[in-house]
């Protein structure tokens, strides 16, 4: 409703109903809509962005190295592994389900890669692909038992958590730790930096330009089709809102070793799967299942197939994340995928704003959420605080995120939006 009506439109469009949501053009209109969304509980990414700023401020005041290029660059690289796993979790959460096996699957994939590549001398690329496929198969198996047999996903993936961890120990064999080639492909995942200054700035420019052109094309098409489109001023604001963090990040990475490969892959995956969720019929089906399984079935959607594919995707992302985590320690060992990894991945998705109730979420929440968790971990390590306190604080942040999710859902219900 932001375009001005031309005289022809005034003839064809029936007189507006007073209840219609008409947005005023210009910035007053954006602000109005923003305030309306906040009041009705559509908080989106706002809480996590505010939280991230608060966390950064607190740690920066305690230790000025926190916002330094080295710390932030390392923080991003460390976050990539857990973040990639969280992207898969976002898909599962949108279905309204949970995947508890991702930690074990990531460990298993690392073990499979290490054994194939180091013990059996298989080329790195084929070993990597087989390791990722291991994750796909594991996820598809969970999906099969959930979607076809009807076992609750919680129980299936809990069995997976135990089972795949056992298989990983079996695969690793008696000595328990296999060191990876420290100049190999997997080692590069978290250790390679594009040291050329142009790489980071070039990629930032590409992203901003790409976004702007795509948005402009969309607005043109909408105008031509006579449906409401975004005003040029809004396009400019949105592009600027993307450009500022993109160039800031590029500048920051160039202050240290350059653009990390891990960040390129992680952000690339987030962007690609964001488009898959919002812009493809597959993504639409995933959201439909999160909204109402019965409605999806009646609309002719193959419910078991979509469910299985989502769990297969989650398994694949877990395996990919496992590669990054193995790359960080340059080894696959018995504790791969254990500890707080599973909880961190799920917490990242939820803290980032993906609803536990299904039907709402975006892949960007994996990025934002994992940055929150990693910031806390990194800041605590910088200040020399024990991991006991770190767990408690991360737990509190997770609780806060879930409370925000539940309260916003309740507000949306009273505002008639859930």
């Amino acid at each position, binding site marked *: 409703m932001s375009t001005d009506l031309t005289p022809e439109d005034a003839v064809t*469009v029936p007189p507006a109903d007073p209840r219609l949501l008409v947005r005023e053009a210009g910035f007053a209109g954006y602000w109005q809509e923003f305030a309306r969304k906040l009041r009705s509980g559509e908080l989106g990414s706002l809480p996590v962005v505010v939280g991230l700023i608060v966390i950064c401020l607190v740690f920066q005041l305690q230790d000025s190295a926190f916002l330094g290029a080295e710390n932030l660059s390392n923080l991003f690289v460390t976050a990539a592994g857990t973040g990639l796993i969280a992207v898969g979790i976002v898909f599962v959460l949108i279905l309204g389900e949970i995947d508890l096996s991702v930690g074990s699957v990531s460990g298993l994939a690392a073990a499979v890669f290490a054994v194939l590549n180091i013990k059996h001398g298989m080329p790195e690329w084929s070993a990597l692909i087989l390791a990722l496929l291991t994750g796909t198969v594991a996820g598809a198996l969970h999906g099969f038992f959930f979607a076809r047999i009807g076992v609750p996903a919680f129980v299936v993936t809990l069995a997976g958590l135990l089972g795949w961890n056992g298989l990983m120990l079996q695969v690793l064999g008696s000595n328990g730790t296999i060191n990876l080639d420290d100049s190999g492909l997997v080692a590069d995942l978290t250790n390679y930096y594009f040291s050329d200054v142009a790489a980071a700035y070039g990629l930032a420019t590409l992203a901003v330009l790409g976004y702007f052109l795509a948005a402009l094309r969309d607005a043109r098409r909408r105008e031509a089709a006579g449906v409401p489109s975004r005003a040029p001023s809004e396009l400019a604001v949105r592009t600027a809102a993307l450009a500022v963090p993109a160039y800031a990040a590029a500048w920051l990475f160039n202050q240290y070793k350059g653009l990390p490969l891990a960040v390129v892959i992680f952000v690339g995956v987030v962007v690609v799967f964001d488009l898959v969720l919002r812009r493809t019929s597959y993504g639409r089906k995933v959201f439909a299942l999160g909204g109402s399984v019965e409605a*999806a079935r009646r609309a002719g959607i193959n419910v078991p197939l979509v469910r299985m594919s989502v769990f297969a995707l989650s398994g694949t992302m877990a395996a990919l994340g496992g590669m990054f985590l193995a790359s960080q320690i340059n080894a696959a060992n018995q504790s791969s995928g254990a500890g707080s990894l599973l909880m961190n991945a799920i917490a990242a998705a939820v803290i980032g704003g993906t609803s536990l109730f299904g039907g709402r979420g975006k892949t960007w929440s994996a990025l934002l959420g994992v940055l929150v968790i990693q910031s806390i971990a990194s800041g605590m390590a910088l200040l020399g605080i024990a991991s006991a306190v770190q767990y408690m604080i991360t737990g509190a942040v997770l609780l806060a995120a879930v409370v925000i999710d539940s309260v916003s859902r309740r507000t*949306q219900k009273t*505002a*008639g939006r859930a």
Partner: protein
Amino acid sequence: MSATPVLALRGVSKRFGAVQALTDVELEIHPGEVVALVGDNGAGKSTLVKTIAGVGPADDGVIEWEGRPVRIERPHTAQELGIATVYQDLALCDNLDVVGNLFLGREIAHAGVLDEVEMERRARELLATLSIRIPSVRIPVAALSGGQRQTVAIARSLLGEPKVVILDEPTAALGVEQTAQVLDLVERLRERGLGVILISHNMADVKAVADRVAVLRLGRNNGTFEVRSTSQEEIISAITGATDNAVTRRKARTAEASK
């Protein structure tokens, strides 16, 4: 009204184990006609609708589509013929917006990528031709009122260009104003030349929009009435079985004719 009914049921029977749910049921729907299907709970209304919609095929009898006999074994077949069914429990996804719900399962996409612009344009066009008023086509349907949701569900069924629309209790659980909206929409469907089967418990609604009323009682036809020339009491007694013989029914008719 054309001579050939778009949809006709001849002697349809359906049995569930020991229960004879439908016995020799006859029903005709003409284009541009609203037929109300009424009956007490358990009279077989839902079973009859399921045989037409292909959810529970009939055991016996013939279904004629535009004059030729067809077999409707699956919901897909019914949809391909041009029969759209709007069930009582709406089947909308609360988290998707109006456009998303209208096109759910038949998205306009090029190589898997959604064409949101075209879908939004078509959605607005469809809603405009039906004079459906909703706040915005881009808000989640959870934000709509019950009547608006019902109109979206009905509009959704029209995207497949059906010739017959079955509405299962479309006004149950709706307020006065919302019921009026839905009834307006039913009249617009008739104006577009669609055959409408309206299942309802509400006699006021039936009297307001239906052309004919088909009464089912204990799985059998219990009379078909022209709405204009029939009193509400007559329909209700046919539903409850208070006038379960031809003599009383003829008596009532002659009495009214002589008024």
